[in-house]
């Protein structure tokens, strides 16, 4: 249930796998309206989206995200590269980036935090757990914390 005075967050998901994309969207549907979650298929698309490069200059279709859910292993430009780029651009670097990946390697965890990600979540195995995670993400970022403007 959404509280009327709370603004639901806008989430941008960068995920190349079709199935995972479907599952994530389905999970978030429990707590967020469909239009609050947008998806891009890789790092390149992600940067284009954030920089408002066409076709991502349509603000209605592609609203500005409050948080980014970033997969690490993507073609063309992977999550690590994208993260580095985002954190180097003034206008973009304050958007919280949550790494959402299959990897659980210590190396990845350490590197991404060092690069400025907000958190690191390993994709859960079952749908039930996925729903829990998305609920927690939504809860945390829209209710518990305050976001930059």
């Amino acid at each position: 249930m959404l509280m009327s005075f709370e603004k639901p967050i806008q989430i941008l998901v960068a995920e190349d796998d079709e199935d995972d994309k479907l599952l994530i969207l389905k999970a978030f549907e429990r707590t967020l309206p469909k239009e609050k979650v947008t998806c891009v298929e890789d790092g390149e698309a992600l940067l284009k989206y954030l920089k408002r490069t066409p076709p991502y200059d349509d603000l209605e279709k592609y609203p500005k995200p409050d948080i980014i859910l970033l997969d690490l292993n993507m073609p063309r430009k992977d999550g690590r590269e994208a993260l580095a780029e985002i954190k180097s651009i003034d206008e973009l670097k304050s958007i919280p980036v949550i790494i959402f990946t299959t990897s659980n390697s210590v190396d990845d965890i350490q590197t991404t935090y060092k690069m400025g990600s907000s958190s690191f979540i390993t994709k859960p195995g079952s749908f039930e757990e996925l729903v829990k995670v998305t609920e927690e993400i939504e809860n945390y970022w829209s209710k518990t914390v305050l976001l930059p403007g």
Partner: protein
Amino acid sequence: MNKKESRRRILSGNKFPHLGKYQMKNEQNPSIRQVKIYSIVTLILIVIGSGVSYWTAGRIEYYTDGVMHTSDVLQRTDELYSSILERETNIRGYVLTSNEEFLTNYNQSNVNAELLLIQLQALTIDNTLQQNNIEELRGLINSRVRTFEASIEYMKEHGDLVGFLDPNKINNALSGYTLIKDVVLRINDVENGLFQQKNQSLINNIYALPFIVGLISIFSITIGLMTFFSIYQFNKAQLAANKEITLFQQKLRDQIKLLDDSNKELEQFAYVASHDLQEPLRKITAFSDLLKEQYDGKLEGEGDLYLSRITAAAVRMRRLITDLLEYSRAGRIENEKVKSVKLSKVIAEMLEDFEIAIQDKSAKIAVGKLPKVIGSETEYRQVFQNLISNSLKFSKPSVNPEISITSEQASEELINSYPNLDSSANYYLIKVSDNGIGFEKTHVDRIFSIFQRLHGKKEYEGTGIGLSITKKIIEKNGGVIFAESSVGKGSVFNIILPYIKP
């Protein structure tokens, strides 16, 4: 294979074309025993040779002494004979010339003669016959001397020998010399006879002795050479054997490297396979869940049943993959730095994690004094976690589980029964015993195999990988784990780990 063929192969360096069928050709090469025998025989021959030489030298010395002795006697008898003649000559000379010098010479000769006689007597003191002969000689010489003295007296009185000499005196003189000569010859004969007697055998065999010594020497030298040769052969054989060993060691090393590489590959494969298998499995699980959510109860016929079976199978597969991943990770060296671990600490921490389960089952866990061992804390925690969790899981339904963990010194007998343990080193024996349901003795090895379960999925949960991981960890740290149990009588898990100095 005969000697020739064997030697040819040794020289060609191609003794062992099939290392698998390798057999050291001991019969062809001299053993250390042969070398010893040769050496001893050589030594004995040398000793015998030396002995014979020494004895021969002794005999030759004896012989030489004999020769010297005989020569001394003969020389003196000759000198005595010459001396009497000399005196005759001197007397004549004096008589003819009245030169006093002849008299001096004559007197000197007398003295010398007496000396010679005394020497002769001394030389033949052990022979009565010779002593008598010498006395006779002395008598005869003295009788001539008396005649000489008489003639000197006469000369001094009358100035010449006219009227002194008569046919009697002349005859006496002649016979006297003959008699003296006879005695002298007799003495010589006796002396020679004695010499012959004493040295007859030696004289007979005088040429045999050097021959015998020569023979022994040749024999010794030959055996000596044979000894050297057999030592040389033996050495060569040793070197060849060493070369073989080195070759073998190298082959062994190569095999170990191959195995090592293969192992690493397998581990790598297991890890990657498990990891990559998880991805589609995730999807199966997730979509099955979604399906269940949206269509629970709405599917016709047995759709619900099929769906729940799919979900259950997927869940189980996920567990299997996770366990397999864990198994492939266990025993990897990079996992944590290896150090000295206090088992008592590890178990205390582990028991804290199990507090709830322990309370639930009202279990009693007794922990004795536990040693320090080498390894990683995480892995030892895993080991005891597995064992305690099993003990709790497989407890008798109506009986409170009682588990004890004790440690003692492993007996030599026990250590020797496991060939991969170092029989010269010390080991701890750690026992984890429980009063659970136990298992049949026949399964005592099977329980440590991957995914081997003794019970159905419905009776007890778990994939059956716990004990395989435990075993892998223990063996990686140079130890051994084995179990003892019987149905209904609980189980004892025995862990042998190397001792480290505290």
